[in-house]
């Protein structure tokens, strides 16, 4: 430990601690703009100049590490004069449009000017005017005039994302930030910039002019868009969810959010939301609907599908009510690999080798990917590249050759290997043979919780439906028509009573006998278990539209005869048309969220290998029904074609791709 004094106060900190952090430990606040605890020191803004005894010049507290016996002063006349100077200079070209700025009220430039700044400006020589309210789709709005060029965003792009979506343009007093060479942001993590930005230069389109910070009621909760469960702070005004902010949990999210998690706030206000229970198409009261449900539960063999959306409590209740329940609606078959140690997101930071098994974390759990792309050694096995950013040793194999490729890996030299797998395909034996802890990436948000609640069953419920063995099937937030290929519709049509509890009218509510509108995310409280086995609480921050799943199950009695003797599970993987998760298409209901609309492209993208001879941008038809546009990806196995999950209904192993000549 190193002992030093800051403004006469003695403090002991770890060696290597920067003065700005030591000062915080001593209870002194040193104003900073460019400094950010998650970014490397830049020394750019010069706001944190302090006086250190025996040093002739003022030093930046954000770049100076502590040393033994150092005597630091943060409030001397020289320091105050320097702070004065820096703020005066920062403000000369600032537009001072605080009244219309979204950052007003939580802006460091406002706060520090009030605390450390000059009372008025001596600058009379005409401000430099720049572009304002520059849209940077899908979510960012850039205001070049307000920017103080602290370069936090630019460094975040470089150091955290290893992308360069926002860069510095020009130099000197002409310098600005922007997306040089393109009009949109082009990444999955733009929203963090709005929080990193100490001023109102980077704000978000969905929150634009929505509220003032002092109007907001702020509640910590979790995001349930994917299985990582990043911690968020939900800001509510007048009962409406205005925005989600980072609520740093080092074990889970490391203090970052992806754009889907941050901006998926439109459910509560979506016009399409189901408002009343429906029985055979007619609106009824909850009492009548639940009585019908109870009758159906007692009329014959009952099974339930779903659970990935449910809280742990609701999942347990679902299991109790239906008896035979399976959360595995999509292609995933494992929530954890039996007999293998479970890894946590933090383990990724410790790992020396990471093996991606036919998994693309950037699409399936984007914040997890931020921990992976830093790594020097990532082995990326599978027909589709799992790493979009950062170096990786690519092991390309055919869709059915993954197990074989894994057998070729030798991890014995690795001290701390971690395997990342999404639980798809028959790979359990091959993965177990690797002998490394496994971090599962789940297809649905609470797969791990559903697994723990016992929502797994031997055999195939949908196949049982097709064979007429099920009388009442309850789909709780599950939509097999989007997740499963081809012949599911026939199976569902065979079920005498189909109960669907969901937020929106979907393909399955059309077939349903009874439809129950349920509370969505941020409308219901409960616990969720993430991919690393961590259970956290979600809060209800806005008024529910519909009853929560848990409340519905509480009002029912268990089914008389849960379905038994189900046929064996079928594998849905096959052929070379691979259906893979895509951030903006995942999670079935994303398509209804208006705030996310900006991120969705008009046409889905199909990825093919260059050897297929299709040029990027070519329009293709899938099964002569779905139109899509081609992207060429040399990282693919030459024979495979990748389509985004939950985008094209009813794709079987026999799906065909046909190029059409662009108009």
């Amino acid at each position, binding site marked *: 430990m190193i002992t030093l004094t800051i403004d006469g106060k003695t403090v002991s900190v770890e060696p290597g601690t920067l003065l700005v952090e030591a000062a915080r430990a001593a209870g002194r606040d040193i104003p900073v703009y460019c400094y950010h605890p998650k970014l490397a020191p830049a020394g750019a803004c010069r706001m944190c100049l302090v006086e250190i005894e025996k040093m002739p010049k003022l030093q930046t507290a954000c770049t100076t590490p502590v040393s033994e016996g150092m005597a630091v002063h943060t409030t001397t006349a020289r320091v105050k004069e320097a702070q004065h100077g820096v703020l005066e200079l920062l403000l000369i070209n600032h537009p001072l449009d605080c*009244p*219309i700025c979204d950052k007003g009220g939580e802006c460091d430039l406002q706060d520090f000017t009030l605390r450390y700044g000059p009372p008025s400006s001596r600058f009379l020589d005409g401000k430099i005017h720049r572009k304002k309210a520059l849209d940077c789709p899908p979510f960012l709005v850039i205001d070049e005039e307000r920017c103080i060029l602290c370069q936090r965003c630019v460094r975040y792009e470089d150091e955290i994302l290893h992308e360069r979506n926002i860069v510095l343009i020009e130099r000197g007093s002409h310098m600005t930030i922007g997306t040089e060479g393109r009009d949109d942001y082009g990444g999955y993590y733009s929203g963090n910039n709005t929080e990193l930005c100490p001023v109102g230069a980077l704000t978000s389109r969905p929150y634009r*002019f929505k509220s*003032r910070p*002092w*109007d907001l009621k702020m509640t910590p909760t979790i995001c349930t868009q994917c299985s990582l469960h990043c911690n968020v702070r939900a800001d509510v005004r007048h009962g409406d969810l205005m925005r989600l902010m980072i609520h740093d949990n080092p074990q889970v999210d490391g203090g970052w959010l992806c754009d889907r998690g941050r901006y998926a706030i439109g459910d509560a206000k979506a016009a399409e939301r189901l408002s009343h229970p429906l029985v055979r198409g007619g609106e009824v009261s909850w009492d009548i609907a639940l009585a019908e449900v109870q009758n159906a539960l007692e009329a014959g063999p009952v099974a339930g599908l779903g659970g990935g959306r449910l809280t742990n409590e609701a999942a347990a209740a679902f299991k109790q009510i239906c008896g035979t329940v399976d959360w595995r609606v999509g292609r995933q078959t494992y929530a954890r690999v039996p007999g293998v140690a479970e890894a946590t997101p933090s383990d990724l930071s410790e790992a020396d080798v990471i093996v991606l098994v036919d998994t693309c974390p950037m699409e399936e759990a984007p914040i997890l990917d931020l921990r992976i792309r830093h790594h020097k050694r990532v082995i990326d096995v599978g027909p589709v590249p799992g790493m979009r950013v950062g170096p990786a040793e690519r092991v390309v194999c055919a869709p059915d050759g993954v197990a074989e490729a894994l057998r070729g890996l030798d991890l014995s030299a690795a001290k701390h290997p971690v395997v990342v797998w999404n639980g798809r395909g028959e790979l359990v034996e091959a993965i177990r043979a690797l002998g490394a802890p496994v971090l599962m990436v789940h297809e649905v948000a609470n797969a791990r919780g559903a697994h723990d609640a016992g929502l797994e069953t031997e055999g195939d419920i949908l196949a049982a439906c097709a064979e007429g063995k099920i009388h009442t099937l309850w789909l709780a937030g599950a939509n097999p028509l989007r997740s499963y290929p081809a012949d599911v519709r026939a199976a569902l049509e065979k079920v005498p009573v189909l109960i669907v509890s969901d937020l929106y009218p979907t393909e399955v509510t059309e077939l349903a006998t009874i439809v129950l509108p349920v509370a969505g995310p941020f409308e219901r409280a409960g616990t969720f278990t993430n991919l690393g086995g961590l259970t956290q609480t979600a809060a209800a921050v806005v008024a529910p539209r519909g009853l929560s799943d848990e409340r519905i199950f509480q009002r029912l009695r268990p089914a008389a005869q849960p379905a038994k003797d189900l046929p064996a599970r079928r594998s849905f993987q096959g052929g070379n048309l691979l259906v893979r998760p895509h951030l903006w298409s995942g999670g079935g209901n994303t398509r209804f969220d208006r705030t996310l609309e900006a991120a969705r492209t008009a046409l889905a993208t199909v990825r093919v290998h260059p050897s297929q001879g299709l040029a990027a941008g070519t329009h293709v038809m899938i099964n002569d029904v779905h139109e899509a546009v081609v992207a060429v990806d040399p990282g693919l196995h030459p024979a495979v074609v990748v389509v985004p999950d939950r985008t094209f209904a009813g794709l079987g192993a026999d799906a065909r791709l046909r190029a059409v000549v662009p108009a």
Partner: protein
Amino acid sequence: MGGLVKGLATTLKYLRRPRATVDYPAKERPYPERFRGLHILDRDAEGLERCVGCELCAAACPVHCITVEAAENPVGAPYSAGERYAWRYEIDLLRCIFCGYCEEACPEDAIQLTPRHDLLSNKREDFLVGKDWLTVPRQ
């Protein structure tokens, strides 16, 4: 007896004096220019709303009688100069104490307290006034 005379004399004296009351509402007593009466939302020289929906009035209001919600000006047909305007601006006049803090807080001189003071209705909801009531008409 003396008292009666004295009283009558006073009455007579006041009879000749000008009247202290005015014939309201036919006539109105002039108020000082800075009298803090009912609010208006002013317009700028171009006829655009001055209010940009910054909510500082609402923040300054000690009785929380102002509600503002802002939005982005529609392209081509802006309500106010610049990027932002208030699509909702409500004052609960029954709660207002006419302290004038809103006027002081306003960076755009949009909300102003006028000498007008005719606060009359027999329905409570009439005292919850919105933009249509507050905004001065275009010249």
